[in-house]
């Protein structure tokens, strides 16, 4: 579901104009021109030549990417959204007034009327008398667990397959790639549905389904990235120094191929939040109707659309905003790691 979005050039323009961002201007200081040529010599003033070389080696792609991220307003917005989401998800037990599946207001519910916001329940109640605010907070935790766990499954599975294909080549490569093609031959949601059906009606089914669906994407990405690295001169140099193929693959090719994979993992977190909601909308993953999970709340709200449309709006917005945060962060990271946009 994650879109392949071409990089947009906003951050360079923004830092180029400089005026809008005083901190950048200050940081750039006297060696502003040199920093523009690649940012490698930003710390040049502090040490001798040897230090500088060491910095370059260590700073590498990652530190440079981080510097670019820090200057990109889009990345900041994404990071702030993600940070808020993480804090709410982790601190849910302390933030939420009630337990996720509690129904403190069940005596106030009438068949034709669901009370809106009040002093006690700031966002109102749901059909079962649950406090909507508490459920949204606990829902963040559910989303975080589903997102992280399924991304890990996709990442680990994809890394294993990608590593297998990318380092052995030959018939192993074609075998793995056929398997990947096979998984991509079925639309992603249907693949997820069939996996969830096998895993049964339990929350783990959703995690497994979303994770497995991501495997082919990670595998392809890593394989492509590794193949591109393998053709580089440094690999040839390492090999000619007598390092074994395995050592070169694991300690040089793999780390250098991880950039796109990490970007993808960030984007998959967005996808996972949306897909989890979709699967729960389709009635997969078990749980009770009162379970505090955004997708389930949205599904439940469908029945009350006529009398309480706000019940759909809240979880829908939570899903969208969280997905937006991870998407903005992921896209900015893609941009920051892209050698073509490395101007400063």
């Amino acid at each position, binding site marked *: *579901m994650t879109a392949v*979005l071409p990089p*947009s050039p906003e951050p360079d323009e923004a830092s180029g104009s400089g005026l809008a961002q005083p901190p950048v201007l200050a940081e750039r200081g006297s060696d502003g021109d040199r920093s523009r040529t690649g940012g490698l010599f930003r710390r040049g003033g502090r040490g001798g030549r040897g230090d500088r070389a060491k910095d370059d080696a260590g700073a590498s792609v990652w530190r440079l990417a981080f510097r670019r991220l820090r200057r990109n307003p889009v990345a900041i917005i994404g990071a702030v959204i993600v940070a808020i989401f993480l804090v709410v998800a982790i601190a849910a037990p302390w933030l939420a007034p009630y337990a996720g599946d509690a129904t403190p207001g069940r005596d106030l519910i009438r068949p034709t009327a669901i009370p809106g916001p009040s002093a006690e329940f700031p966002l109102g109640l749901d059909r079962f008398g649950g406090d909507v605010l508490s459920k949204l907070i606990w829902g963040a935790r559910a989303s975080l667990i589903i997102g992280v766990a399924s991304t890990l499954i996709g990442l680990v599975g994809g890394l294993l397959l990608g590593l297998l294909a990318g380092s052995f080549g030959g018939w192993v490569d074609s075998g793995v790639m056929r*398997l990947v093609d096979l998984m991509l031959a*079925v*639309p992603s949601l249907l693949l997820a549905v069939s996996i969830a*059906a096998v895993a049964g009606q339990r929350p783990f089914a959703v995690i497994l389904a979303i994770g497995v669906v991501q495997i082919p994407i990670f595998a392809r990405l890593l394989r492509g990235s590794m193949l591109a690295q393998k053709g580089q001169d440094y690999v040839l140099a390492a090999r000619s120094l007598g390092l074994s193929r395995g050592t070169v693959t694991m300690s040089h090719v793999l780390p250098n191929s991880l950039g796109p994979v990490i970007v993808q993992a960030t984007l998959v977190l967005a996808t996972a939040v949306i897909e989890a909601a979709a699967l729960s909308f389709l009635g997969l993953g078990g749980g009770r109707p009162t379970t505090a999970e955004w997708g389930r709340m949205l599904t439940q*709200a469908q029945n009350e659309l006529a009398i309480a449309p706000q019940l759909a709006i809240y979880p829908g917005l939570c899903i969208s905003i969280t997905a937006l945060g991870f998407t903005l962060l992921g896209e900015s990271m893609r941009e920051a790691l892209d050698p073509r946009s490395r101007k400063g």
Partner: protein
Amino acid sequence: MLIVRRLAQLVPTLIGLTILLFFWVRALPGGPAVALLGERATPEAVADINRLYGFDRPLLEQYFTYVGRLLQGDFGTSIRTRRPVLEEFIDRFPATLELSLAALLFAVVVAIPLGYVAARRRGTIVDHTSVVVSLIGVTVPVFFLAFILKYVFAVKLGWFATTGRASVDINATNPTNLYVLDGLLTGELDASWDAILHLVLPAIALGSIPLAIIARMTRASVMEVQGADYVRTARAKGLRPGRLRNRVILRNAMLPVATTIGLQVGLLLSGAVLTETVFSFPGIGSFLYQAISSSDYPVLQGFILAIAIVYALVNLLVDISYGLIDPRMRARS
């Protein structure tokens, strides 16, 4: 030649899929017989089903029986409706086809001009709008958007229909089962109009994802092309702006966009399950939803295979159509 070669490439994928789907049913909780009978099946009934369907035979034999049936067009029988799965699929496919085409039409008609203007007028309000639209399409769940559209424009404002494909009082003949087209063919324009009123909201909801992706792609592609040397040359030689736009920039920029449009079919089929369910639109998507809710596994198994075949054929069509758009592809094949 290309067509034959591509069709041949489909064969291993389809064989692989039948193997996966074959084992999938056997991996379901409780095994295939329980999947057919439901979880409360008595052991006797399970044994009967196992004998009747041959689930007690060797796996290899069972697989070949399954493939043999598929080749004869037997995709199994729905537990819920007791009708052949393939018949159910063929009955409902035109509805989903009509919806997907409408969604794609909406997406293309909005996204290409939006992406084009955004690229030509960088940093303007249109450009920012295109970025926001792209983000909405990628981050707002399809069924949430469908909810909102349905609530605002159908329930509150009453401009469009809330559910289904046609109003009950419309009694039109349907030679193709594409309702909008049928109305035009038979001259029953009120039926066409009614079908359009039912189609608009689901099409917008479903079209939101491809809209976002196509707009992003168009913007990036036009931006790349307009900086190319041949565009500068054309401009320097005094080509009229209109001709420059249509013959030089758009035609070159549309190649990657066409690829992207082709890639949207899978997303449309996934999204159709959700959109059709919200609008009770009687296509393969809402039928799949009902199959999931009632554990109608033969339908799931058959529909997934049928959808994968459709998906593969559409991709084939897309590949072939590149030859028509890009002369370089024709020369290569």
